[in-house]
Structures are given as structure tokens and as C-alpha cells.
């Protein structure tokens, strides 16, 4: 039995993520998606050639939102991922944006680097870039580059922020060009509310023993069943578009994206959020 048993009419499953959700405790604290917050995620890669997926996290992602004024906010993004052996891939970014339903990025900087076990950057492996939004173009610095862009657009990381502020009921899907990973233009994006589902979270495998009486004698049958979880209503949104495997966002009643899954890439919100 999967950790997240769903009713048959529920379209979206978390089956693939279930091994990573055993005993998962969702954050309980209050949360204002339009306020100041930090959300930390475990990054999982769910692809397995042989055997079941295992629960270990591949890396971490931390998002920190700060209100700059009534209309604007900044989003700090920090990612760390082991890169084999003693090395670590690091990515840090800061985005300033307007808090509209589809966030409007104004400027952003990002720094990527590979560091060794002593924290030293591997030579020539790091760079820091910045970008500003113009009416019909993105202007990048270091090195300079002008990339035309038309119509509504947003940065991929901003959707992690925006999803908690969206209505928890059907609305006209948002259509946009996605600027993925800070600089990759992917047209045809669409973000929509799908449905609200009740999901069992926090369950663990428990050994069950059943005694069966047979004419020849009594036998003990043991099995493992998931137990101890509680139903949590989660609001499901999905994102489609060119250059992405569909993203599915699972958001709690307080507007916290708990679980974010794109094919075999998944983000699981850590408990104990600020």
C-alpha cells in the first residue's frame, strides 16, 4: 500500500515519491505566502534503474522570501548538490520581483560554482551573472547579452513563490514564457489549478500479524502495512510547457508548497520552517 493512498477519482498520485515520504511530518507553523519566510527542501532524484526508489536526498534547496514593499519582494535561492567524490555544485541567486499573480521579475543575480572538500572553488568553474528585465528583452551582464522576450513571462524559481498565493480553486490558467534556470527561454508555459486532494502523510510501515486457523493447525501470517498517517488536504497545481516535464505542486492550506514533483525530480519541504 503506498504511503499516499488516493481515491480512484484522484488524478494525481504521489506513488513515485512514497518511499521518500515515509514518516513525513509536514510543517505545522503558521505561514503567510505573501510575507517573509524561508522554506527548505530536500531534493530527490526518483529515477531508479533497478529496485525501489530509496529515501536519501540528493541535495538541498532553500528559498527565502522578503517583502521589499507592498508590491515587491526578493527571493533568495540557495542550492547545494554533491557532484561526485569530494565536490559540491553550488548555486545562489537573488531575484527581485513584483508580487503579481504571475510574478514579474525585475532584476536577478546568480552565482554558480563547484567547490572541493575544503570549500575552495574549482578553477574556472564559477561565474556570477546578472540580468534586468526590459520591456521586450532581458539584458544579461557578464558577459553582456540581450535576449528578446515577448508577452507575459516569469522566472522558474518564482513559481515556487507564486504557487502559495494562487487561489485554491479553479481560475483561468496562467500563460507565459518560462525563463528557466535564470536564462533559458521556454515558450508555451501554462500554470493551472487542478484539484484539491486528501493525501495521507506521516504514515510508516508497521508489521501486522494475523493468525489463521486451519484444520492442520494455527499459522501466523505477517505483512507490512502503512499506518499512523493522517489525511492532509493538498491543493494540486500543474505546470506545462516547452522544455519542461510537467510540474505538479502540492500546496497545503496555509499556502506552503509541500511537495513539488516534475517527473523524476522532486522537492520535499522540510519540517520546522520559519
Amino acid at each position: 500500500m503506498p504511503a499516499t493512498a488516493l481515491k480512484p477519482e484522484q488524478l494525481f498520485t504521489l506513488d513515485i515519491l512514497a518511499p521518500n515520504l515515509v514518516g513525513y511530518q509536514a510543517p505545522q507553523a503558521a505561514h503567510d505566502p505573501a510575507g517573509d519566510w524561508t522554506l527548505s527542501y530536500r531534493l530527490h532524484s526518483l529515477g531508479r534503474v533497478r529496485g525501489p526508489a530509496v529515501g536519501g536526498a540528493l541535495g538541498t534547496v532553500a528559498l527565502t522570501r522578503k517583502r521589499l514593499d507592498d508590491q515587491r519582494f526578493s527571493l533568495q535561492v540557495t542550492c547545494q548538490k554533491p557532484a561526485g567524490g569530494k565536490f559540491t555544485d553550488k548555486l545562489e541567486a537573488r531575484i527581485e520581483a513584483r508580487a503579481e499573480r504571475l510574478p514579474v521579475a525585475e532584476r536577478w543575480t546568480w552565482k554558480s560554482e563547484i567547490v572541493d572538500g575544503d570549500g575552495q572553488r574549482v578553477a574556472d568553474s564559477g561565474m556570477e551573472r546578472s540580468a534586468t528585465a526590459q520591456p521586450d528583452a532581458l539584458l544579461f551582464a557578464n558577459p553582456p547579452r540581450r535576449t528578446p522576450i515577448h508577452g507575459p513571462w516569469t522566472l522558474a524559481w518564482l513559481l515556487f513563490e507564486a504557487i502559495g498565493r494562487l487561489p485554491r480553486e479553479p481560475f483561468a490558467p496562467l500563460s507565459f514564457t518560462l525563463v528557466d534556470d535564470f536564462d533559458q527561454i521556454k515558450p508555451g508555459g501554462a500554470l493551472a489549478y487542478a484539484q484539491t486532494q486528501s493525501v495521507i502523510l506521516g504514515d510508516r510501515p508497521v508489521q501486522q500479524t494475523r493468525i489463521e486457523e486451519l484444520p492442520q493447525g494455527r499459522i501466523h501470517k505477517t505483512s507490512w502495512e502503512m499506518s499512523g498517517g493522517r489525511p492532509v488536504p493538498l491543493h494540486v497545481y500543474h505546470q506545462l510547457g516547452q522544455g519542461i516535464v510537467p510540474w505538479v505542486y502540492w500546496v497545503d492550506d496555509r499556502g506552503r508548497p509541500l511537495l513539488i514533483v516534475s517527473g523524476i525530480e522532486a522537492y520535499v519541504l522540510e519540517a520546522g520552517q520559519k
Partner: protein
Amino acid sequence: MSPWCGRQEAMPSSLNIPSAHPSIMDQPDLAARGGTTTRREFLQAGTLGAAAGLSALASPAWSAPAVVQRRPPNFLFLITDQLGLDAIAAHGSRDAHTPHMDRLIARGVTFLESHSSSPVCSPARSSLMTGRMPVETGVISNSRPIHASRPNLGQWLGQAGYESVYCGKWHLPGGYPAEIPGFRVLPVGGGQGDIVDAYCSRACQAWLHQRRQDKPFLLVSSLLQPHDICYFAIQGKQLVPPQLPFASLAGHLPELPPNLHVRPAAPARLDAIKHEGFSDEQWRYYLYIYARQVEMVDAEIGRVLDALEDSGQADNTVVVLTSDHGDGRGRHQHVSKWYPYDEAAKVPLVFSAPGRMPEGLADRTHLVSGIDIMPTLCHLAGIEPPKCSGRSLRPLLEQRNVTWREFVGSEHHIVGRMLRTARYKYVHYEDDPVEQLFDMQADPWETRNLYQDAVYGDVLKDHRRMLAQWQASLEPVEPTPCFEGPGRQPGQGAGGKKA
């Protein structure tokens, strides 16, 4: 295929094609007679330049290359994983939007009869890195190292004065090792293509932006997508659900291939490969996901190409794009790879160096292979290639009239061989009486196996003969140890024993 794909036809988007290519080193054709490129041939071609100023490092089992007269070009070698030749928009895909690969194709020469040496990761990659067939590299299946007697591209160019840098998937044997013989490694890794590729392209971007060396470079940017599609087959129930969860996609999913349910008579090992359990809608969703993953790798390629342009080094850089193998994409009810059908065996091969090579050309005539890349890069660099089975494509890049090979071969399931001639495809597994013969002109979807049709008796005999000759021309080595499997140490094969 898209309508502009003709024999050395210009594409609509082509720019002016220079009548001469003075910056390609003017060397005689090495490949005119067929057969392999040898040291003797290269010497006869007068290409041995002075090796002054280039120190030869110690090499255990092969001698260093001789070198070069003037500043050779840089190479940006883009390797994708599981990218079929016709999965690119410029090659006819109606499902994927691939503006960056399209621009590379529009500004270069694309080979439309390009075949993997063995449509599975490690063997194919060993060929890309050595110019040898897998049976000659010792990498006859996944997760084996290249035989010590076979120098890799990084070692070979490195000893000729190149700065050789590798970033991304290696799989010979380790997936993302921090050390690779002959290369400086930009270490990335961890996760599948959806996660790791962005780190790879960013690292390549940073390296191109920051390097200050005067040496020519070989940068291998080895991206993993669209390989993630493997998991959509392996973990099909979870990732390709019976009911399409995204209602807005209904009516917008890719069309099914015409040979989805066609299963020609095949050797048993080949016949055993069949993906079952998908409805037509699931197959179409699978194709939808594959197209998105192709677009994902296209975006990473775009970042690296932009970085090359921004670095100011594009004018002296030859960009090469290929893949280790394709993906089944439902054809013959296949997912993944291994088999000799075109869906797995045909891969993109593009060379682009605007101002140095023709632009906007599609070569659909010459049969080429991943084994040709190493001798081609050596030839373009003016470096004697190691003895190998591949042939330099430079004459074809220059649109010279040359006598080209009659066939190209590939390996499958260790004991299977495929021979592709201009018109036919022939498949033989050494332990199986069932053969395959397809007329690729009349039957490009490989639906009718003609091997028992008496009309094709002579064709079959010819192909058997060619296969025997080809096999005799190769120089096999002992297979290297297989490291595949959890918890196994180098030097250990299956079960923890020495393989």
C-alpha cells in the same frame, strides 16, 4: 525528414557557403580508398608537422601523436544521451522545439546517415572517444573502462598541445567521475538529466568565460537528456499513468509512429525486447515527455553555444554535436535502446564552424558513424590520429568527391552485428539462425524482414560477405571488466568477482 534534407542540399536557412575553406588545413583526403586511417596513411599524406614545443607525456600503451603547423581549431564536443536523429526539429520532428540545435544545424553540416557504433551508452561512448568499434575498445557493454591500449580523444589531443576538458556524463565506467585519463574534469553529477544537465552547462559556460589559456581546447560537454525517458518506461505505472492527468494535453499529444505494433521476425535476443502495458494514449504521453526532454537538452546546448559566442572564441572553434544512441519512441513497440532499428541506431552528427566549413548542408548519402569523430577532429587539428577504425569526415565536410565506404556497422547485445549499406540494413546475431534484411529505401520504417525472400538471396549473400570482411578488419581486444551494480569495486564484475 524535413523537405530540405537532400544529398548535400542547402537548407533554406543556410547562409552563404564559402567556395573555399582556407582555414581548414589543406591536407589530402585520407579516406578516399576506404578502410581505416592509419599512421602510415597520415604520414604519406604529408601531415606530420613539427612537434617542436610540444612535449609528449608518457603514455603506457600507445605512442604520442605527431603534430601540427599552425594554430589548430578549438573543439566544442556536445554529446547528448538517447537523442534520436529525427528527434530534432530541423531533422523533421514535429513534436519538439529545438531552436538551438536547429541553429547549429543551419550553420553547419549535418549527416543524416549517422549511426551509433553500438546503441547503448558505454560502448557507443567508447567509440566516440577512440575512433574504434566497441569490440576494439573492450567496452562491449555498459560500465566498462576503455582498454588501456586505446588512447582517448583527450589524451591524444592533449599530447598534441590541446587543453582537454570534460564535463558531464562519462560512463566509462563511472557515470560522473572526478578524474578521467587525459582530461581535466569539471566535476558535476548527482541526479539525472533534469537536475545535472543545468549544472553541466553552467560549468561549461563558466569555463568558456574564464579560461585564459592560449592553448587550443577540446571541451566535451556531455549532457544527459533526453536519457531520463528511460525511467518513464521502467517506472511506467508511476510516470505514465493509465489516465492522462493533464486534460489540456488531450488532443495535443504526438502522433503514434506507423510501426508501433509492427514486429518483424528477429533474432531471439532482439525479439525479446518489447515494451508492453501502454495504451495508445500512454504511448503518446511517453512521446510527449520525450519531446520535452529533447527541448530540455536543447536549452542546455543553447547556453553552451551562447557561452562560446560570448567568449569570443567561436570563430576558431569547431562545434560537434552527436548522441550515443537514440530511443525506441514506440517504434516496433520499443523504448530505450540496444537494438539495430533506426530509432536507436541513428543519431545526429553535426559539424559547425561558420566561415571554416559549409553551412546549411545536409548530407544524406554518406554512411558515417561515431567512430569517425576522433579521426575527423585529429584531421581538422592537423594531428596524426591514432590507428582507428573510423575515417576522417573532413573530405565530406569540404564537399569533395571521394570514394566513401560501402557500409557502416554496429554492435548489438554483444553477439549481434548490423551492417547498413546504401539501400539495405542487414542484422546477424552469431548465436541465432534468424537474420534480418530491410530495404531501407522502400521500407524506411523497417516493417518487412526480407531475409527469407528468395528475391533477395544475392543481396543477403553480399551482406554476409561484407559483414565477414568487416569483422575480419577489426582489431578486437579483451573485454574490459564490468563495474556495473551497487557496491562493486573497480576490478570486480557481477557478483563481486573479477570479471
